[in-house]
């Protein structure tokens, strides 16, 4: 085998894996702090992509691209705050079934709104000129934009880590994830932490949608498909473990990249084959806690 091709496949896998991490990390953060499984996470990723598409049409310009992606994440984050205040906040104490009902309803509402606002035809984004084409790595072409996704995702992953482990809000949210009652009795306004954490998780979704779907065309309803991948990632990694999510996302990305190249017939099923095999060996996921 040609080592150059292997390297390109590996880079492809890392780029894809880091994007999966970005997409799934918000879902896992919201679950581990709030205990809410947000089935609408994929739809919010899609929403981020649509905002990016529109802002690119309105603002345009090559150099505003990164600002537009960040802005899209921010807008989705603000929507997240509203969703938390008006809906999610009401079901923390309720049975899990209500989470399913609520967040499934959100999928239908978001999908319906997207169809209403952006229409049913696929939309594709205009990448800025400096992201078109490829760079040469080990004598082989590698898409510039994939490289941007790789480094962009790594940068965001570092920011998320710094946020959780170096800021007061991050520490308070990890404390609240472990013990709500005590955290509250230590003087921390837990509902405020919950709202902020939900917004951050959702903003990560919006951001990853803008960043990751810029290369493909976007269609209403694609959120459900993305959500399935996100769930595969956090289940493989172990619910509640962000490191697990990172490892699982990279495994999935790399296997997919090699799968696309060497076994294209089974590439679609690959995430689920990996998930089944890992869960057979470790039902709680790679780094999940055994309960």
């Amino acid at each position: 085998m040609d080592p150059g091709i292997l390297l390109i496949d590996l880079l492809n896998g890392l780029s894809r894996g880091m994007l999966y991490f970005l997409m799934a990390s918000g879902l896992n953060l919201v679950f581990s702090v709030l205990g809410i499984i947000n089935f609408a996470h994929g739809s919010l990723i899609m929403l981020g992509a649509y905002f990016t598409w529109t802002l690119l049409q309105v603002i345009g310009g090559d150099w505003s691209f990164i600002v537009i992606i960040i802005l899209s994440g921010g807008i989705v984050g603000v929507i997240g705050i509203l969703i938390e205040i008006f809906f999610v906040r009401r079901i923390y104490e309720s049975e899990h079934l209500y989470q399913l009902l609520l967040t499934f309803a959100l999928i239908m509402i978001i999908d319906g709104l997207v169809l209403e606002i952006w229409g049913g035809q696929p939309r594709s984004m205009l990448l800025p000129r400096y992201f078109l084409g490829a760079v040469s790595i080990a004598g082989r072409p590698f898409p510039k934009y994939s490289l941007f996704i790789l480094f962009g995702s790594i940068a965001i992953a570092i920011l998320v880590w710094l946020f959780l482990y170096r800021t007061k809000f991050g520490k308070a949210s990890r404390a609240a994830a472990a013990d709500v009652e005590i955290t509250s009795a230590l003087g921390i306004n837990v509902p405020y932490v919950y709202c902020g954490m939900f917004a951050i998780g959702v903003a990560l979704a919006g951001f990853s949608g803008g960043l990751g779907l810029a290369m493909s065309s976007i269609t209403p309803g694609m959120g459900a498909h993305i959500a399935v991948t996100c769930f595969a990632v956090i289940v493989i990694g172990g619910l509640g473990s962000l490191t697990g999510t990172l490892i699982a996302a990279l495994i999935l990305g790399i296997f997919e990249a090699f799968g696309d190249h060497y076994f294209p017939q089974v590439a679609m099923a690959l995430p689920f084959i990996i998930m089944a095999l890992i869960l057979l060996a470790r039902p709680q996921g790679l780094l999940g806690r055994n309960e």
Partner: protein
Amino acid sequence: MLEIKDIHSYYGSSYILQGVSLKIKRSEVVSLVGRNGAGKTTTLKSIMGIVRPAQGSVKFKGAEICGLKPYQIARLGLGYVPEDRRIYPNLTLKENLEVAQIKLGSSKTKWNFEKVYQFFPQLKALGEGRLGSNMSGGEQQMLTIARTLMGNPEFILLDEPSEGLAPLVVSALADAVNEIKVEGVSILLSEQNMKFATKTTTKSYVIDGGKISFEGTIEDLMKNEELVKEHITL
């Protein structure tokens, strides 16, 4: 400083506190003794706002706090040390302490890392990066008290600190409680262990079936053999 008048609290549908009244003055250390299930923990949780009393009044520094949320009560200067050493297992020792400081912002406070470590040198010896899950029971109990102190409370609700700890550790804890008292912090201590209660407190309440059945000095309580036999394990 803390005055509880006729509080009634439910846990789900069971009627736990059936009219509890307590009064603790500034710089006083008072014990609330009683058997398991007598209502000690529920009393402390009702003061802290974790359990919301159905009826009654809780006044702290003259202001009514009954009905406030736990975080609001904590910010008024009431500290809560839970039973069962509920430290954060996923946080490091230092982070456990930091969480209690978050509400204070950057203002200078009486209690800081240096002072807390001086109080509990065992904690400093463990190293700040030690995970909460990786500590012994006694160390975890010290950390829960240290954590509450970091919040700079004027009054501490201390729930069964000696439970399940070795005698030597219990004795070290009693020393720590006495030192906290010297710092001018008032304490309401829930205890079953009379040795610990007599070492640390002068005034005592006995709770039984959700009602206060005795109020007086700890010497008077110990003299009352019948009461001691009935409600307390020595």
